[in-house]
């Protein structure tokens, strides 16, 4: 595996199935990501530094090493906290809401997919996840980082950054909804056709 000149991003993968955890870990590592895997939503929140009933990470957490997570990829169907519940908790947290979240599921249920996208998930992967799906992760991480950079730049200037950042969010979420519908139908088409391709 070639060593990437780019920064190594850290992905947190959540799945209750050991087999699927092994698979997603391998896919991510092969794609040059640093990986942490956990078997439940509550463990995921622990890694992210959030207790289940908190909405923001404590300012000082000396027991936790600051593990920066750049993206969360989670299975939808899990006992206890589902992937959707985890997604909600992340998006409701002031400290974690900008972390991109991707949902995986072995079932193609449009209402489920839409629900997740509307709650703020970046993408929905149909299992079994493929190596080619991994290429879609980096853009989401970079987009988030770019947003972070923009906010920092605006904070340093004299413009009214509060208004700018919230209108950015509105534009982005409207754009994303429309885009997601397109992407969703495109991806669903691709999913159905990829099984008939020979991949060597």
């Amino acid at each position, binding site marked *: 595996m070639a060593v990437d000149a780019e920064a190594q991003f850290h992905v947190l993968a959540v799945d209750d199935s*050991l*087999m*699927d955890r*092994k698979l997603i870990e391998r896919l991510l590592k092969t794609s040059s990501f640093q990986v942490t895997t956990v078997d439940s939503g509550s463990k995921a929140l622990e890694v992210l530094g959030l207790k289940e009933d908190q909405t923001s990470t404590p300012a000082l957490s000396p027991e936790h090493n600051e593990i920066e997570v750049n993206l969360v990829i989670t299975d939808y169907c899990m006992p206890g906290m589902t992937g959707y519940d985890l997604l909600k908790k992340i998006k409701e947290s002031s400290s974690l809401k900008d972390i991109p979240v991707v949902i995986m599921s072995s079932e193609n249920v449009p209402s489920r997919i839409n629900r997740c996208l509307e709650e703020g998930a970046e993408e929905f992967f149909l299992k079994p996840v493929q*190596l080619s799906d991994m290429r879609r992760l980096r853009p989401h991480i970079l987009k988030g980082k770019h947003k972070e950079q923009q906010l920092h730049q605006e904070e340093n200037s004299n413009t009214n950054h509060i208004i700018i950042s919230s209108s950015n969010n509105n534009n982005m979420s409207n754009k994303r909804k429309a885009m997601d519908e397109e992407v969703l139908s495109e991806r669903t088409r691709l999913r159905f056709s990829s099984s008939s391709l020979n991949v060597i």
Partner: protein
Amino acid sequence: MELHKLRRVYIEFAEIVFRDGFLDNQYTQLQQLQDESEPKFVLQVGTLFLEDSEKLLNELRSILDQQDVDFEKLDAFVRKLTGSSASIGAKRVKDVCMTFHDCCKKGSKEGCRKCLQQLAAEYRLVKRKLETLFKLETQILAAGGSVPLLSQ
């Protein structure tokens, strides 16, 4: 057996396994994820599949043995098996799971019983195929060779 022969035996055996639909392209995807840093990846995932499947089949059996069959619970386990068989590429097992899922939705005890029988049979078959493939793969690696990538 020397390496060249091992590889031939492997390819010929695998061709039949693929032709008969026991495994599909997903198995090849897993092979492509294996390399020197993770030389036993396919073996490990395959072993997990076999372990998961035994447990799931037992669960399905015990639910169907009840007087009142909990079809939702049954379906939940069937969906798990659908997922794991899809992950390893066990196509015939996955196909029976889909039929099983339909029977669960219909609440048909007889239908589900038949599906379970079929499922157990298909599982036994793919288990043997996988174990043979794993044995050959291990021998090829031990002989210093690389496992041929299979194509559908």
